[in-house]
């Protein structure tokens, strides 16, 4: 427990390290393990925020009723672009992936993708923008060489 506690103190600012240090010295008379991990963790630079991800900023400022154009009119996304405010990945349960060794670059998937989530410029291999892929599987069904594979992205566990 004591090394874990040391790591916890180093990472968070909920409890002051000194207060805990005094308590541990008084009760357990064993500060060695605690200090060791606390010092070690302080040396590693961990960015703030959960899981080491960059900090979450304030929520984006949304337009007020008078700022919004009437009838929810939105300008079209420029050619070759995608709507940065409306990503459609959240309904996906199956995630397609491409085997580039099998792919013949025929553009069939690029034509059939109903969400325009596949990028394919010139002679390049297709790549999927997973922010917009809904996992519908149309690319898998239409691939003439079976270069597409799919795997279950979310696993539901039934509690018994």
């Amino acid at each position, binding site marked *: 427990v004591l090394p874990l506690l040391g790591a916890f103190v180093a990472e968070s600012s909920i409890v002051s390290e000194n207060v805990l240090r005094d308590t541990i010295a008084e009760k357990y008379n064993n500060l060695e393990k605690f200090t060791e991990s606390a010092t070690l963790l302080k040396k590693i630079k961990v960015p703030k925020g959960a899981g080491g991800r960059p900090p979450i900023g304030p929520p984006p400022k949304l337009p007020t*009723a008078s700022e*919004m*154009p*009437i*009838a929810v*009119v939105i*300008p079209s996304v420029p050619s070759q672009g995608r709507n940065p405010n409306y990503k459609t990945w959240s309904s996906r349960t199956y995630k397609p992936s491409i085997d580039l060794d099998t792919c013949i670059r025929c553009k069939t998937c690029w034509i059939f993708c109903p969400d325009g989530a596949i990028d394919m410029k010139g002679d390049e291999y297709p790549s999927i923008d997973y922010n917009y892929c809904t996992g519908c599987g149309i690319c898998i069904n239409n691939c003439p060489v079976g270069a597409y594979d799919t795997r279950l992205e979310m696993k539901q566990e039934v509690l018994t």
Partner: protein
Amino acid sequence: MNQIGARKELITGCVSVAHAIRLADVDVISAYPIRPYTGVMNAVAEMLGAGSFDAEYIVADSEHGQFEIGKHASMVGARSFVGSSGVGWAYAAEAIIITASNRAPVVALVGNRALDDPGAFGTEHNETLMTRDIGWMFSWACDAQEAMDLTLLSYRISEDPRIMLPSAVCADGSFTTHIKYPVEIPSQEQVDRFLPPYKRSFVLHPDNPITVAPQCDDKYVFETRKQIDDAVRKEPLVIEEAHRNFSKIFNRQHDPFLEKYFTDDADIIFIGIGSMALAARASVRELRNKGEKVGFVRIKRFRPFPTEELRSLLRERRAIGVVDVDFSFGSPNHGGVLYQELRSTLYDEPDKPPIVNFIAGLGGRPITLNTFMEIADITFKTAEKRKPEKDVYWIGVRA
């Protein structure tokens, strides 16, 4: 001076609305037959056939398709006209709702007709009133002249950049739509002066691709409702402006919200909507001859509801008799829709008069002088006792 070029003809309400469509130079007319609205569709088809004006005339597959066509035409910047009656209006309800939320200033004629079943052609106001909450404006004509004037006014008000919401001109089935009245048909020059061309700031066009009304989550839906609320609050001002301008150009006076018939010194006031005004006026004249101080108020616009006008007109009267040509089963006191609106309007008044409700003329049963005499008797008793004996009376029904 303004009358130059205007002419007078004996025509039905449907034909007079068709004349308004011709004069407003409507671009797209989407039609699907249902009586009594069909009268307009026929008259417009005849005018187009005779080359009186030019427009795209689309007969839809159903009322739902019809209202969708009208809405889409409006979105690409075309002035469009639609219309229906009874169950047709109900079938188009989905398209009717999005016409308002897409801010398409379509104008529709509703030939008020009883909802099926049983199938009937007579007047009832329920089909219109069930769409009262979605942002459409509803005005009610009581004769052919008013049907024409309100159609012209509706285009002007709806297409105002401050509003951009659709309008329905309601006309009682057969009584207003199919009875001939002498109607003054204005000249094209007059209408052109009154009605500016329709301009839309967000036009659907391939040169400037836009998405209108996409699927969006709670981050935006609430704000779009507020936008419509903001526009609706501006409607009374725009309506008054349009009416002032109308009377200048066409030399006809119109109170924008209420027809007040002998109301100045009236102790007792009857209130109703639509063609019943003819019987109401006759009964008011007869009762005045007998020395009774009665008056009649016809509500010409149901949305926006003339709340302030009615408050100042009705406070401190001895009794109010509300005549509903509609029903609202299970509503407070089991009264009609207009009754509920009026009670709510007068709730904050310290000296509110007693209100008694009459359900009359359902299914097109004529509201006659005798109907109004019966209504008057009960309203007088209500005034004497300072409260209604019964809240709601069904008049002229075999009960």
